[in-house]
Each structure stands twice: as C-alpha cells, then as structure tokens.
C-alpha cells in the first residue's frame, strides 16, 4: 500500500519535487507520514501549529489511519486578506 504526499507552494521549492510516494501498512497514521517527511526533508518547515495536514482535500487529525492511495498535503493556515 502506498500514499502520495504532494508538495505545494514553497514546499515544492524546498523539496525540489511535486510529490513523493510513501509505503504504508494498515497501522500507518497521518503523524507517521509527517515524521517521514520531516526525516526526508529536514529543511522543510513543518512545525506544529504552523501547518495543517490534509488527506484527500480534507483537514485530518494526526492520528487518522491512512488508506491505500490517499493523498496528503501540508497547508498553511490561510484565513484571508
């Protein structure tokens, strides 16, 4: 099983890629994916309170179990100009 992690905006500049795949098991949670990305890209700012994690276009909690072919992305807290 695998999930796709998409990089948006400045994340794409830092990682130099649009997306990566991450293998998962039936117990893999959103937080595991977050840790995985932090290890892969230490320069990527993903501090707690700074970004939200979206799974398939919906904001998800860190303990959500991931499913095969889920798409994750990290969103800034946009509240509007």
């Amino acid at each position, binding site marked *: 099983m695998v999930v796709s992690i998409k990089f948006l905006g400045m994340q794409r500049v830092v990682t130099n890629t649009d997306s990566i795949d991450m293998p998962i098991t039936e117990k893999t949670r959103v937080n595991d994916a977050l840790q995985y990305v932090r290890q892969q890209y230490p320069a990527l700012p993903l501090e707690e309170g*700074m970004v939200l994690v979206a799974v398939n276009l919906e904001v998800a909690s860190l303990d959500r179990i991931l499913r095969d072919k889920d798409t994750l*992305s990290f969103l800034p807290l946009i509240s509007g*100009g």
Partner: protein
Amino acid sequence: MKILHQIKYKPAKVVGGYTDRILRVNLGKQEITVQELPPDFKNKYVGGRGYALKLIWDGTTRETRYDSPDNILVMASGPLGNEPAFPGTGKFIVGTISPLTDTFIDSNIGGHFGPLLKRAGFDALAVSGISNGDVVILIDGDAQTISIAAAPAHDREIDDGALSFGEKLMKDVNGGEYSDSLAAVTAGKGACNARFGIVNSLFFDVRRRRIRSKQAGRGGTGTVMRYKGLRGIVVRSSLSKVNGNNAIDKEGVRQAGSRLKAVVSKCDPQQLHLATWGTTGLSEYMDKFHIFPINNYQYGQSPESSKLFAQVFLDKYFSKKIPDGCYYGCNLACAKGSENVELTRGPKAGKVVNIDGPEYETVGAVSCMGVFDPHFVMEYNWYCDEYGIDTISTGVTISFFMECFQRGFLTADDVGYELTFGNIDTADRLLHEIASGQGFGKIVGQGVARGKKWVSAKYASRNGTSQDTVMAELNKFGMEVKGLEFSMYITKESLAQQGGYGFALKGPQHDEAWLIFIDQVHKELPTLEHKANALKWFPLIRTWFNATGLCKLPWIDVRNPEAANTTEPSKNLPTLAYYVAYLNATTGSNKTLQDVLDDSERLYILQKLINLRHGKGTRANDQIPQRAIGPAFFNEYEARAEYYDEWLQQQLGDNKVPASPEQRHKLLMEKRIEAYQYLCDIVYEKKGFTSEGIPKRETVEKFGLMDEQARQLFNQLGI
C-alpha cells in the same frame, strides 16, 4: 500650477493617534474649511470607515448618487495608522456613495497618504461639490497651506494615466525631486468611462528609488473622484514618522509592535510566505480546493492554473531581496513589485514600465476570463492601474459578457467581435475599450448589474421573449450582489463564505468576511451555529481594522502558533491581544477586545442604516447568484459531480438520491438554496435584525444611532 484658492492653516499636533480635525473641501464653491471635531466624535466613530460613514450619513440623503454635488469623497486613516513600530499602519479608507451600488462603499488602501495626511494635521479629508474644471488639491503641512489648483496639463500620455500623472505631479510640487515626505492619490481616464474607477495611492519608495502605487480598487471611488473634477491630491509633511501618533504610552506601543513583528518574522516563512510571494501564493491553494474563479466562476480548477502560481511571478518578474512594505516598519512586506517589464500589447506596446503587483485578486481576475498567461497578468495589472480601473470588476464584468456569449445571449454582432473565454486578444481589446469608453467597452464599463439589464433587453427584443425570463437566467451567473462584482473566490462549496459575500454591506468583497478556507478546508465552522457566529464576529473585527488605519494581514494571514491552544484558532486571538494593547497604548484607553467589537458594531449598524436609506439594506439585497450557491448550470455540476452527489446524499440521509444526473443537479440546487435561506434566518437573529434583514429598533438604540434621520427611516420602513 495655477492656484485657484488657498488658505493658510496651522497643522494640529497628533496626540494619542488623533488630530481631532477634518479638512473639508467643496470643489463646487472652491471652499476650504478646517473643522474641529467634538471630543466624543472619535469615541463614537473611531476613525477611517467610521468617520466616512458618519460624514456620509449626515451629509448626504437618500437621493444622493455618485455624481450628485452633495456626494462626499472621504479619505481617512485612523488612530492606529502612522506608526512604524507596529506592522501594517499605512492603511487609509476611501469612502463615498458608489456608482456601482448606489450606496456607501469604502475601499482600503495602503501607502503613505494616510499617515502623511495625519501628520499634516487631519484625521480625514472630505471632498464635496463638483469642480467646473479639472483641479488638484495640495495639502502642505510644511508650508502650512491648503490649495485648490488647476490640474496641470502635460502631454496626453501623462494626462491620461493615473500613475503617469501622479508621478509628474509629485515631482512638480517638490522642485523636480521625489521625496518620501509627500504622497499623492490620483484617478485616471478609465475612471471617466467606467463605473469601477479606482483611487491610486502613490508614494516614493526610497529603496527602489521610484514611485510605487497601491489601489483602493472596489466600488468606483475613482469614478467619483474624477466626476468631481479632482485629478489628484498631494499631501506633504516633513514631521518625523517615528512616534508619529504621539502615543500616550510609547513603551506599550513598542512592546506590542515588537511582539507582532516577532510572530510575523517567525511564522510567515513557514506559512503563506507573503514576504516572498505577496498574495500570489494564494492561487495554488485556491486552485487545489476548487476555489479559483475560472471562466466566470464556472470551474474552480484548471490544468493550466500552474502557469499563474506564485513561483512563476517570483522567477520572472518580482524584484528580489528588496523589502516590499507599503509603509515603514511592516515586516510582512507583501506589496510585491517588478521593474522594467516590457508591454507587448495595447496602446503602450513597447514601453518598459514598473509594475506594482500583481495581487492574488488580479491573478484571479485574469483566470476569470479564462486566460492563463502570466505576462498578460502583468500587463493587465499595469494598464488597469494606469487607466485607474479596478482589476476585479474589470475582469468579472468582461467574464460575465464572455459567458453571455458562450450561452448564446450575445452574438458577435452585438459585441463587434467574438467574445470567448481564454482569448487574450479579445480580453486585451476590451480592457482598452472600457478605459477609453469606446465600442463595446462602453457597455462593459457599466459593470455586471447594469450589463444584465442591457443584455436582457437586447436578447428579449431580438427573440421576442420577456425580459424577466432572460433576466432570471442572467441572474444565475451574473456575479454581483448589491451592484458590486464578486472578488475572486468560488463559494459553491462553502456556505459560510456564501454568507460572507451575501451579507457584506458593501457587496461581495471579502474584506468583511473571508471564511472560505476556515469553513471549506480547515473545517473550523462545522455547524450552522458556528457559521452564523463567524458571520457576526468576523465582520465586526474586520470593520475595526478599517476604522483604525490598520492592515489586517499581519493578524489574519499569519497564524500565531499559540492560537492552536485556544477554542477558536481561526480568530487568532493571541495576536489580536497585541492589537488591543497597541490601541490602548496609543490612545490611552483601557479597552478590551469586547469593547473593540462593540465600537465596530456601532459602525456596522450605521453602514446598514445607510444601505437601508439607499434601498440596499434588506434580505432581498443579500441574495446571491445561483452560481455562488452551487453549480448553476449542468456543466458545472458535471465537473464536480462526485463531490456534489456525496453532499446530496448527506442531506438526504437514508433516502436515495435521484437516478438521473439532471434530477440530482436540480435537487442539489434546491437544497443549497434552502440552506442559504436558513443561514439568512440564523445570521439575522444573531445580528439583532428582523427576518427581513433590518436592524431592530433596540439594536439601533443600543449603539446610540437613533437620531432623527434614523427615526424617519424606521417609520418609513414600518419598523
């Protein structure tokens, strides 16, 4: 420059953020008056929008229109503008009776004009009357003179351009040199020909060594300015910017400012990167979540959108490594700019220009026309600024007519050419026709609301159908409310933002309530109750920013990490605490956040009263086009069928959704229209309004606004 009338004055000292003076200029009578304000004026009306509202409530009538001599053009900062120790203090408000909405409009604008007006001795400038010939106003705090002068005539290239004329004017009044001791506002030739003319705010950027500009874009404030015969206003003061407000507690100001600056420095590089990208960074997120207003808001996403993402503008256009604040001391510095861009289209093709922008809204406006060319965005940005027309209303109105063409309501014979989405040549041609008032641009320059009437009359007479029938169809996709064109967000999937646009007193501009991400993506407003509470709270706090001379972005677009520990993170209350501290330190007050909200509610209710007086204040005026509620046409439904079918299933519970897509689409729209009406009921109750959207008498009395005019209005309304 020929001086037509001049007075001498002694600039009032700023104390605690106020000068307690308004400068009144009547261009018809060529009168200049310095008005002292009574002590309780500022306590009740705060500043900025509040001052504009009160001056227009008292000084105009229900018969006043944008072109009436008694219409007043107000420019006002606020008690917290003009302080480099705190981020985002260069804002001021331009308020008037709008040529688009026929009621109060205001638009906020950055730059140095507001702070310099205050240092020159005035909390606000109120211009009434209509001049016989074109004039400029010169407010010189150094020479202690205020003058009405004949507008200087140069060559046509300079005189027709709001930017070109302003740059020349700023140089001419300062012995041929630019200086950051003066700033100007101007309106261009496009404002003479379109109802959505803007006011440009020009200031000298000492780092770039050039004049930069910001815009009061919404609602036709520039059209009013030009109609008055007012080409420009220059204000000068050499007084120090530091502690410009003469704050009561200077150390308190310093502390509040340094706390906010620390949050901005730490968080913006991890969040929206406004300091790097400006607001263009939003395009990618809007596209991802189906909010980008492609083809007149039909589709929220396109494979071509990435051509308009922020990195494209950063790589190709934005000047790098130059701080971009539109006023001193703002470390968010989001006002991006580009130098030496060659125009490839239009009457100035071949000219190399400096461009301030684009903002997200301008990028969105171009996508609204189905165009995905970044260079066209830059050119469109510059031409709109130079002509003095609103990038948003221009794009949305062109898009409306493009869709009329797409759906067969217009023909090439009506327009003079094929008007199709995505055709840059056509979009470009129409832009110049709008500005010059020629060809089909003459019609488009009237905006969407009047455009609907024109198209319905034309189509009905050609096809022998009733105009009402045609109008009902056009109302589905004519993206305006109260006469103002929507700003650049698709609201189909966010009920809260539908209300954010529908209830907005000036019309669908997001500066009153931008709830779309909080609702649709962050899911921070899960219930109707949450949405309704947000639709009361956010307009109030946002009103306060517009009354005080502050930019909202350091608060709302930089989320303080401590907000995560609060029950309502989207309010960003830890950062708002810095703002309340800044207010108290500046003015010497001892207000709480609730006091601030109460002050704002008074202004909000006053604006509602003006809307009621001008026939734009009831539930009927808060209704939004079907396209803002959901997929108005089947092609839009098909493009997001999976999402809509799921939503419909949730609404129907155990009942089965209809089998045919056409039936599902019909039922979906019925349910969404129903939801919006239910939202209206709840929100009106929260705001202290009747079910018709009218403030109850006790609501008006609570805020001390039941004067004789309000009493008469309520009697006429039968309330």
